[in-house]
């Protein structure tokens, strides 16, 4: 994973992506208990909004001899899924990313509050479960989460989750 993270950092340095942040299961694992996941999800902001935001990434990757595997790119043998920031919430999550350290390598990761907001917006059962775990792990700044949810019209979703939370 270390090598893959370095390649992603390099892509940002080279301007192939403008900014990025790890999301999904690996971001969740950073904050809460480890979860079963198979891809390193990378939310990214492309340097230019265009028709095919993934094309420069795949061009760079193929130039390095990396191949694709299902929806992911195998970077240094590691499945990485690049996801263009698809709305204002995800764009803000990338722009406001935190830094994590894996061994000697630093990488950008979505903050816990944005991870919770994105999960609330996505709204699948596993996403609601993730929000509950993030809240339980005490890694959420409630004021920041409230601001994010208010901005992106998601306040009601947290209230609904907490109101109906019977799970342990």
């Amino acid at each position, binding site marked *: *994973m*270390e090598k893959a993270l370095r390649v992603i950092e390099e892509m940002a340095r080279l301007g192939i992506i403008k900014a990025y942040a790890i999301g999904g299961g*690996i971001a969740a694992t950073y904050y809460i208990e*480890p*979860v*079963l996941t198979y891809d390193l999800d990378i939310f990214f902001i492309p340097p230019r909004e265009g028709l095919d935001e993934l094309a420069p990434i795949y061009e760079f990757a193929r130039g390095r001899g990396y191949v694709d595997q299902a929806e992911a790119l195998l970077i240094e043998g590691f499945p990485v899924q690049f996801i263009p920031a698809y709305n204002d919430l995800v764009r803000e999550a990338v722009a406001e990313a935190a830094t994590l350290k*894996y061994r000697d390598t630093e990488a950008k990761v979505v903050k816990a509050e944005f991870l919770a907001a994105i999960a609330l917006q996505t709204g699948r059962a596993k996403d609601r479960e993730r929000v509950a775990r993030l809240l339980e*792990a005490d890694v959420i700044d409630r004021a920041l989460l409230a601001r994010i949810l208010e901005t992106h019209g998601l306040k009601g979703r947290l209230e609904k989750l907490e109101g109906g939370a019977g799970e342990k």
Partner: protein
Amino acid sequence: MKSKSADTVFERKRERRRLLAKLPFEKKIEIVVELQRAAAGIRKEAGRKPWVLERPERTVR
């Protein structure tokens, strides 16, 4: 209806999750790989292979 024993079990589960959440990120990634290996015996889907983690790099002094 509340059950004191159930509450105790749930509290222990929460405590276990809190402890796991506090592990170093490197250790958590090792656990993710263990979960993938455990799942590999049940779900044999393409693209669902357990990761192979690099060995930590050592600085030669």
